[in-house]
């Protein structure tokens, strides 16, 4: 499951970030920002106009990610 598939308000844990291309700078940046294995994330809200971009809470930081960026982030849903 990808981060982009989560509904508003859902929480999950990051598995890993996929490279969309060889040496994908965007994927690298996402990892630098903290999207690494085991990190809890939450979808705070969606923007108007079709829910793109998403607002993602990770650690104490909120990032606006476009759906294409969020589709690189593989997550697993928490039980709770």
């Amino acid at each position, binding site marked *: 499951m990808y981060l982009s598939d989560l509904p508003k308000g859902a929480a999950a844990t990051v598995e890993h970030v996929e490279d969309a291309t060889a040496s994908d700078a965007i994927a690298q940046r996402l*990892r630098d920002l*903290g999207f690494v294995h085991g990190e809890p994330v939450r979808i705070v809200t969606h923007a108007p106009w079709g829910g793109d971009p998403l607002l993602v809470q990770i650690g*104490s930081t909120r990032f606006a990610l476009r759906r294409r960026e969020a589709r690189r982030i593989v997550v697993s849903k928490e039980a709770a």
Partner: protein
Amino acid sequence: MSTASLRVALVGNPNCGKTALFNQLTGGRQKVANYAGVTVERKEGRFTSHSGRQVQLLDLPGAYSLEATSPDERITRDVLLGRYPGEAVPDLIVCVADATNLRLHLRFVLEVCRQGRPVVLALNMMDAARKRGIAIDIPALQQRLGLPVVQTVAVKRGGAQALIELVDGYVIPAAIPHESPAPASDLHAEVRSLLAATVTMPRATDSTDDAIDRWALHPVFGLAILALVMFLVFQAVYSIGKPMTDAIGDGVGWIGGLAGGVLPDGPLRGLVSDGLFGGLGTVLGFLPEILVLFLFIIVLEESGYLPRAAFLLDRLMVSVGLTGRSFIPLLSSFACAIPGVMGTRSITDPRDRLVTMMVAPLMTCSARLPVYALLIGAFIPAHRQIMGLFNLQGLVLFLLYALGIVGAMAVGWVLKRSHRDKTEHALMMELPSYRLPKARDIAIGLWERGTIFLKRLTGVILALTVLMWVLSTFPAPPAGAVGPAIDYSFAGYIGRALQHLFAPLGFNWQISLSLIPAFAARETAVAALATVYAVSGGDANTAGLGQALTAHITLASSISLMVWFAFAPQCMSTLAVIRRETQSWRTVALSFSYMFVLAYAASLLTYHLVEWFS
């Protein structure tokens, strides 16, 4: 031993409070310039510590990682690693981290530490951290990181005391082990264990932020709030800035008149009172409007609201080839395209930045208003109501604004389609905490931008106004000439030559000529027309000029002229700023020529359509 001067560089993630800390340390005494060849700002300041140590402070651009993805980050990396030509390696690196956001910021601190350079850590925003009940075990953190750690509150007087003392007594260590760069996950793992051992945090987010964002980012209310904010900004620019602008224009004109009075009649007097003071008045006159606009933009920026606006509008902007971040520069462009073009610096993606810069001049700037006001007043009936609701004159003005916006969307869309480089543009934008803007930071920001604006513009506009004055004054008419003097000047010849080009749009030679000074500053077209039609200028006679115009040109020509002004490549100073910001004449040529073609085609079409219907 601590009397030698020390070169210190400030680094940190964006929004860590680096700028505030820099201002606190240097007291706003700073030199702002650009790094050579790029438009990344280089800020340097200095201060003297208690023991008399001279400290030279360099504020490096904010960065998330040394794995640089933008020109700003590349500069930060290169300066830190001592690889930036012409920039001395800093003796000491002060890493600034937001104490309320350590999960993100500590990773960068660790990355910087690994470069084997002397580093100290400043935990900033300690006031906010304490308020949120975040407890940090400083001695433990210091010991685990192996570097000095101090606490700062950059926005409080004396809040950087601990850092100053640390720098005061700092002894540059002989050698520091250089660790090889670790994979990303290692750094993150290290941050986690650091946090687990030294920080307790009751709650990951700030409850006030959450509460405000519930409204500010709401799909319906969020957009309504945004619309209201924009409306207020516009109101303020016109109701506060405009009267001041007019007052300055009058004041400078008056002084010019006095100065002219002392000089003997002749060309020199004309140059001083019309050329120098007239030109200077125009530039200075724009300052209040621009400062009011900047005031609001800085307040919005400092409060943390602007990234929210960018978030709300991103999708809309992407569909026309822009990005959410374009919103801010485009908003500025309604006052003047120059701050708009300068504001594109906040757009990280170079292509998005270029497109935004290209379309920014299409937003109807305040300098076009006098021209629109003249033409609408003269040609559009005042008391005609449309559907009993709208005033026809107001409607036409609104349509002209809309024309610019629609034009910008179309151009953005075309540029997006035609771009060969289809790689992805990323947004990845941090939404910072909301903060109450501090008067001191606003004042420093206003001062910085005001001086940049003045420095950039006085040169260009002054030179051009003087040139225009020379062209329309020389050569003097031959003895016994009957027509207005301007007919015999260079300007007269140029106007008639230009008319060959502009006749298809319905412009006579007088209008064609007025397009030249309009290229220097748009509103001067009104003054130029007044001169050409031998009607004395000034507000009292706008009606007289309007009558002269209705006698000389048709309705079709006047509407065609309005459309021309909506799209035309203007003004000179905007192009000069584009050149400065991009360091490329090619971009200037491209932006000039596309606007020329667009304006020409649109005016041609309008002229013939209106002719056909009337």
